[in-house]
């Protein structure tokens, strides 16, 4: 069973869409497995000033995307990097065990997007 929070973020996803002139983009997952998540970042200094997502996946994947974008909006890149999938799941009042991997996607997509930004800036990617 999904929590009420999951269902809320799934039905009314926050920050859904794309950013035309984004500073970093990360895409993870695989359509064959039924899940792809794409995160778009707008960065000012070391601040994430805007973030949007597009997700192909289950309820948990969509809710995780929505929650994750809320959690990193207005945060520094470092803070966003630190966001774990467990934190996303917890913010959603938990995910069913077989759906935990869907929240991993959010963590990974954010990492990809931040590194994309850093690389575009000619900086070393983090790991």
């Amino acid at each position, binding site marked *: 069973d*999904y929590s009420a929070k999951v269902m809320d973020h*799934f*039905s009314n996803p926050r920050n859904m869409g794309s950013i035309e002139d984004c500073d970093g983009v990360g895409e993870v997952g695989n*359509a*064959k497995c*039924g*899940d792809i998540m794409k995160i778009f970042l707008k960065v000012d200094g070391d601040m994430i000033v805007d973030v949007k997502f597009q997700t*192909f996946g*289950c*309820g948990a994947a969509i809710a995780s995307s929505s929650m994750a974008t809320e959690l990193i909006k207005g945060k520094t890149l470092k803070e966003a990097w630190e966001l774990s999938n467990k934190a996303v799941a917890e913010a959603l009042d938990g995910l069913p065990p077989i759906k935990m991997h869907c929240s991993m996607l959010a963590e990974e997509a954010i990492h990809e997007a931040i590194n994309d930004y850093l690389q575009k800036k000619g900086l070393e990617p983090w790991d």
Partner: protein
Amino acid sequence: MTIENRTVYMDNSATTPVRKEVVEEMLPYLTDNFGNPSSIYELGKTSKHAVEKARKRVADAIGAEENEIYFTSGGTESDNWAVKGIAFANRSRGKHIITSSIEHHAVLHACAWLEGQGFEVTYLPVDRYGRVSPEDLKNSIRDDTILISIMLANNEIGTIQPVEELGKIARENRIYFHTDAVQAVGHIPVDVKKMNIDLLSLSGHKFEGPKGCGAFYIRRGTKIEALLHGGAQERKRRAGTENVPSIVGLGKAIELAVDEMEGTNKSLLEMRERLIENLLQITKTHLNGHPAERLANNVNVTFEYIEGESLLLLLNAKGIFASTGSACNSTSLEPSHVLTACGVPQEIVHGSLRLSLGRMNTQEDVDRVLEVLPEIVQKLRNMSPLTPQEYRAL
């Protein structure tokens, strides 16, 4: 999320409610007529007669003799019995089994287990509509083939197999022929004699009978071992105190379903065709299964760029209950083996939706689905990174 008050149940291939007339016939056997059919006193005889009446009804529904019908705990047990019972009883004759790649897991996993016991299994491919080719079957027969198990109608895509022809091939080669008719009985005419069937599985809850009760047809003279050993019930072939109320219910339900089949199917067919026609209007949507050799209650489509579980959840929010072949909605994390076997590409198989109609559905239900579904598909496509720009509406 708030749920609409008016609900539309379109998952009748998953299960059905027990219909009123059936519940009524079952009730006395839960309470007053609770006797054990093996007992010789009056209360036992009443139960015994009720079970035998149900057996006759099942036999009549599929063109069998009464003493060829055995009651089980459902389709899964019947399928397991067929596959394992034939395998163990005929081991000395051979160790090869032929089935198809789109069987229900009750057949497939029983076969896989037998592979671990030294049996060999050929899984026949299907064409894009989900049909097994009689030629393929012929070519896969070996000297040591002891069983051919091909389902009559598929639970996901509704495709009906040429079972009469497949059964004929089996018979000509003196190989036992089993058919999983769980989705077929009560939905299309079934005649075990005409169709050359030696063993047949059926399950009550697919035709408005009770859950946890099925039947198994064993043609007279078939060499098969028991699956459940113990007491001498069911002419010593299936042990366990008989589930009298459910057996009574199954008997009543099968009789009603077969009697009313023509009328029911006429109305289901109209709904099915309207649904298919209109859903295919949605861009990048594909029909799964055979266009004509198909159960009257089955609609199965794939929408590109979206994932099935999300679709189900949004439908649920609108009070529409359906199912999907997406891995994201299963505990196995494998997408539908049926759609995969039909060649639906892995990239789009997750966007499949099954709407399975039942006797209680109406054209208003179809209206409601057609009103709601296109919007939901669009909403999810807008959300998906896979959707090409031209299919977005933002």
